C-alpha cells in the first residue's frame, strides 16, 4: 500500500479511537493496530511498543485517583487528599480509565505503525505543497531510533573506558550529552540540507508509482471509519 493512504488510515484509526465512547470499539482498534505493529522487525518495534503500552498502563492506574465520579459502585474507599479530593475508586472511574488508556494506546500504536512501517520518503514526496512540513515530521520521526542508537553508542563508549553505568541514575547522566548531541546533529543536518538546495524554488519530484485500487479503498475506509465512529459509536 502507498504510504499516503496508509498514513490516512492510521490517522483515521487514531481519530476514531478518540471519537467513540464504546470501550469494545476502542479495544478492537488498539488490538488491530497492535497486530499491525507486530509486523515490524522485533529489534525496532520494542521501544515504540514499550512507550505506547506503558503510557496507556500509566493512565489506567493513575486516572481513577486523579478523576472522581459520583456514579457507579464504590470498589475501594481511600482517604481524602487536599486538592485531589477523595481517593475512592468506582466502577465508572475504572471504566473511564480503561477507555482513556485504550485511546492513548491506540494513538501510540498508530504512531508506532507510522514510524515503523511507512516509507516516509514517499510521504514527503506525496505531500505536494506541504513538503517542508512533511519532511520536518519525517525527520522528527527518525529522531526516536537515532536517539536510541546514540544512547546505546554513548553507553558503550563509557563502558569501553572501563566505567560502569549503574541504575537509572547512571544512565540519566547520559541524558544531557544525548540532547546536546542531537541538537548538534540537527544543526549539521540543516547546513547540509541548505548546501543541497533545500528551500530553493523550482523543485521537481522523482516519479513514483501511481496509486493502486487498494490505495483508493484504504482512503475510502479511512473516511468511513471516522464517520462511523463520530455518528454511530
Amino acid at each position, binding site marked *: 500500500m502507498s504510504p499516503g493512504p496508509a498514513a490516512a488510515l492510521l490517522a483515521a484509526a487514531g481519530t476514531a479511537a478518540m471519537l467513540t465512547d464504546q470501550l469494545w470499539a476502542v479495544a478492537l482498534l488498539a488490538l488491530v493496530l497492535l497486530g499491525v505493529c507486530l509486523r515490524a522487525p522485533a529489534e525496532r518495534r520494542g521501544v515504540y511498543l514499550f512507550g505506547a503500552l506503558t503510557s496507556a498502563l500509566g493512565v489506567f492506574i493513575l486516572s481513577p485517583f486523579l478523576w472522581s465520579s459520583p456514579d457507579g459502585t464504590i470498589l475501594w474507599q481511600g482517604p481524602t487528599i487536599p486538592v485531589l479530593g477523595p481517593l475512592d475508586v468506582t466502577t465508572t472511574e475504572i471504566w473511564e480509565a480503561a477507555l482513556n488508556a485504550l485511546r492513548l494506546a491506540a494513538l501510540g500504536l498508530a504512531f508506532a505503525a507510522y514510524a515503523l512501517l511507512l516509507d516516509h520518503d514517499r510521504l514527503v514526496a506525496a505531500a505536494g505543497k506541504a513538503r517542508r512540513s512533511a*519532511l520536518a515530521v519525517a525527520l522528527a520521526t527518525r529522531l526516536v531510533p537515532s536517539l536510541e542508537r546514540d544512547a546505546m553508542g554513548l553507553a558503550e563508549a563509557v563502558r569501553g*573506558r572501563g566505567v560502569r553505568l549503574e541504575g537509572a541514575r547512571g544512565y540519566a547522566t547520559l541524558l544531557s*550529552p544525548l540532547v546536546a548531541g542531537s541538537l548538534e546533529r540537527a544543526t549539521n543536518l540543516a547546513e547540509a540540507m541548505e548546501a543541497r*538546495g*533545500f528551500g530553493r524554488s523550482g523543485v*521537481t519530484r*522523482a516519479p513514483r508509482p501511481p496509486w493502486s485500487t487498494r490505495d483508493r479503498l484504504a482512503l475510502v475506509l479511512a473516511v468511513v471509519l471516522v464517520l462511523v465512529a463520530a455518528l454511530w459509536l
Partner: protein
Amino acid sequence: MALVTVDGLSFSYPSAPAALRDVSLTLEPGEVVALLGPSGSGKSTLLRALAGLVPHFHGGRFVGRVVVAGLDTRRARPAQLAGTVATVFQDPEDQVVMTIVANEVAFGLENIGVAPSEIWTRVERALESVDALHLWGRKTTELSGGELQRVCLASALALEPRLLLLDEPTSQLDPEAAALFLAAVERLGAAVVLSEHRVPRALDLATRVFFVDGGRVLLDAPSDEAVEWLSVERPHYARACVNQTQATAGAVVAELHGVSYSYRQAMPVLDGIDLELRRGEIVALEGPNGSGKTTLARIAAGLVEPQAGTVELRGRAGYLSQDPGRYLVKETAIAEVALAVNGDEQRAGAALDRVGLGWAAGRHPRDLSSGERERLALASVAVAEPDLLILDEPTRGLDPEWKATLGDWLQEYAASGRSVLLATHDRDLPAHRRIGLRLDQTHASSEVHVGV
C-alpha cells in the same frame, strides 16, 4: 575565465578568533586541488566559504569576496549555489535526510529542479560510480559508516556540479572504495577541492595544492612543486613516517576462538574467527567496509557477546569507538578524560598534554574541532592504561603530524608491556601483525594473514 575567485577573504565565527585570514585564490574549471593543513587550520571553513555556507549559515565577520561561477556568495545563498557546487561534509551521519538510499541521492536532484524523467537514471549512475548500487533500497539508518559515506558521495556526484567540495570524503572507506570514488571524481571533470589527511591519496589526484595553516594559505603551487615544498617544510605530509620497531611479544592478553556473529539471520558478519593478542605487540585488523572489523574489535573488548565461540580476556580492555562524538559526555575536556580514572585530574591532565590538548582542559568538548575531538577521545580511553587498548579507525580526522605522533606513542605503549589492537584502513600506522578480514560469498568474514 576562473570558476572561483576568492579575494582578500578573512572570516571569524561569532565570538571566535579569525578562522581565515586574507585568503586570495582562483580556481579554473576542471582543476583538482588538494587542500592540506593541520586540524583546525581553516580548511573546512574555506570549503564552507566556497559553498556560501560562510557567512550565510554560520554568521560571523566576513571580509572580502568569494565569487563562484559568476555568483557573489555574499548575495547568493547556498541553496542557489547548489547544483553548481556540491559539498560532502566530514560526518556522513550528519548529512543524511531521507530514509531510503535511492531517495537520499535523489533529494538534491529534486531540490535543484532536475527533470523528473532524468532523476532515477542519474541516481543509478551515481550509485554505480561509487560501487553502491546494491544499497539502492536499503534504509540509511541501517548502513555502516563506510556505506553511508559512499551514499553521501553518490549524492554529490549525482548533481554533476561544476565545483565539488570534499571534506575528508574517504576517511571511512577501504582503499578499494576510496580509489573507486576518486576515479569517479576524476571522470566527473568538475573543479574539485579535496581536503584530505591521507596525503598520498590527495596528491595522486590533484594537479595543484593549497596548504593552509592558521587560516592563511601558505602554499599555492602545482603538485610537483608542492611535494618538494612539503618535504622540506612539512615532512610528515610528504611521506608516511612509520618508524616500525620490533615486537617483543609477551604473554597472551586476549584469546578469541571460533567467534561468530551476525546482525541479521542467515547473514553472518564473522564466522569462526580465531585471534590471539599478546602483550608488547600491535595488531592491525584490516579488510573492506562491512567485513566485521568493528564487530570483532567490540567482541575483543568484551562489549558484545559473540553468538558462537569464546573470548578470554586476561586483563582490562579499553575500546575507542570510531565516532569521537561518543566521548563528549562531560562539561570540560579534563572532566571527560578524568571519567575513566575516577576523576583523577592529574592523570587526565597528563593524558591531555600527550595528545596536545593541554590548552583545552577547561574547554567544552563540543567546542573542539573534529581532529581535536578524535584526540580527546583517544586520551579518554588511553588514560586508564588498559592492558589491551582497542582503537577503531583512530586516524579519522587526524592530520599527518598527529598521525605520526600517534604511531610513535602506540609503539611506546606496546613496548611498555601492553597490547594494541587496531581496526583500520590506514596503513600509515605501525603494526607488528596485520590480520585481514575478507568477505566471502556468504558475506561472512574469514581471517587471512596479510603480513608483518
